[in-house]
């Protein structure tokens, strides 16, 4: 069996007395799409943010291609330099896009290439243009975020991440802040990325995306990873009652 791209073992996270992640174990296979689903507050975003150590986990291990992230050895924090080095190869897309509003689309994408990868300005701009073309925004490169729709902003954010040539992409509810009619364009970009063999971890409420694009689906509730299975298994033959309840609520809310 192939080694995991991300190996999460016995991860725990507390916010004061609140136990946000409880002994979470999860293996992310390389080149595949893993969707994290579950009710709000179940810890799926927290888990995702632990993978690039934007959120510090308290115990357990998270390994990216075998290398422990955030800690030198369990219990001793990693240096900032090393952490930044690891983050370079992990792209992240946020619910609120988080583009830098004082830069154009192209500048947003080129920024990391210049300041982090150390590319020359012209080289960075060429790559930024390529990345923006890839997400279908060749004609919006000079626009500032305020002049882009939510869907376009999120596609710039995806371009910003993929321009860094990451080995792994994390998506934190990438479509939750979008108007319904703009969700499709973002999901299409993500599908294209998946078909290229990008390793992706996606926290999402888009059950359709999870069902059709994911290779594996993990269901979380109250900080626990309840089940990991194929989309088929999770959506059509859930083994746990909690999944059942979640899906029933989801269907009730989305049926008309």
């Amino acid at each position, binding site marked *: 069996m192939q080694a995991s791209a991300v190996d999460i073992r016995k991860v725990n996270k507390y916010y004061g007395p609140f136990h946000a992640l409880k002994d979470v174990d999860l293996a992310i296979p390389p080149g595949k799409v893993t969707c994290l689903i579950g009710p709000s507050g179940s810890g799926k975003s927290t888990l995702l943010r632990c993978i690039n150590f*934007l959120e510090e986990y308290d115990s357990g291990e998270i390994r990216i291609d075998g290398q422990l992230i955030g800690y030198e050895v369990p219990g001793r924090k990693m240096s900032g330099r090393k952490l930044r080095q690891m983050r370079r190869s992990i792209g992240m897309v*946020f619910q609120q896009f988080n583009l830098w509003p004082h830069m154009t689309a192209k500048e947003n994408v080129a920024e990391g290439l210049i300041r982090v990868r150390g590319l020359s300005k012209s080289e960075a701009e060429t790559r930024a243009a390529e990345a923006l073309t890839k997400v279908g925004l060749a004609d919006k490169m000079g626009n500032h975020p305020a*002049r882009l729709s939510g869907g376009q902003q999120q596609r710039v954010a995806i371009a910003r991440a993929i321009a860094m040539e990451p080995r792994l992409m994390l998506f934190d509810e990438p479509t939750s802040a979008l108007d319904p009619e703009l969700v499709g364009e973002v999901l299409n970009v993500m599908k294209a990325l998946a078909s290229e063999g990008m390793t992706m971890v996606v926290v999402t409420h888009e059950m359709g995306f999870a069902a059709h694009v994911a290779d594996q689906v993990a269901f979380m509730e109250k900080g626990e990873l309840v089940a990991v299975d194929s989309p088929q298994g999770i959506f059509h033959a859930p083994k746990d009652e909690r999944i059942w309840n979640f899906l029933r609520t989801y269907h009730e809310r989305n049926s008309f």
Partner: protein
Amino acid sequence: MEWSILEQYGPALLRGFGVTVLCWILGTIFGMALGLMIALIQRYGPRWLGWIIQAYIEVIRGTPFLVQLFVLYYGGPLIGLRLDALPAGLLGLTIYGSPYFAEIFRSGFRAVPHGQIEAARAIGMAEPTIVRRVLLPLGLVSSLPALVNFSIILTKETVILSIITVPELMYQVSRMSTETFRYLEANLVLALFFWALVETISRVGRRLETRITKHLIERT
């Protein structure tokens, strides 16, 4: 009203106004620079340094500028700080303005959405680069109206420098009034100069604001 005295005192008044503008510009620049440093140390520095700085802020904000200036100018020599009137005045203005500027920057930084800083961290950007490329540009934009406002307040604090004989406008106006007993004329001239200065600053400030927020405002 007796305006003919202006012929005699005009040049002195103009020189005084020049010194006032100089004090204001340098006091604002140095005060802002010190304030920015304070705000950055408060955000990134060690906690003990933050406490010392907080105490400094409380002391400076809690005492009148006049008192600070006296302490600096007349108390300074006791600890070997012997300054001429103008440098003492500039140092005084810098110190007086710094905690206000620091507070303005601090709240400006707080207005920068945390997500935009996280986005920079997520691609592996180093913290000093994040400050330079994300925190400062965005923080300054939200600080600008308050910065302009406080620098306008500072213009009028410069008159206090006349007490320690900095030859700025108020100093010249006082001299003119005591020598001629034309208090009203002298002070009307003073008012006119200040009004012109403040009006210019606020116009420039507004223009600057429109320019730098041009791209940040959503136009639909």
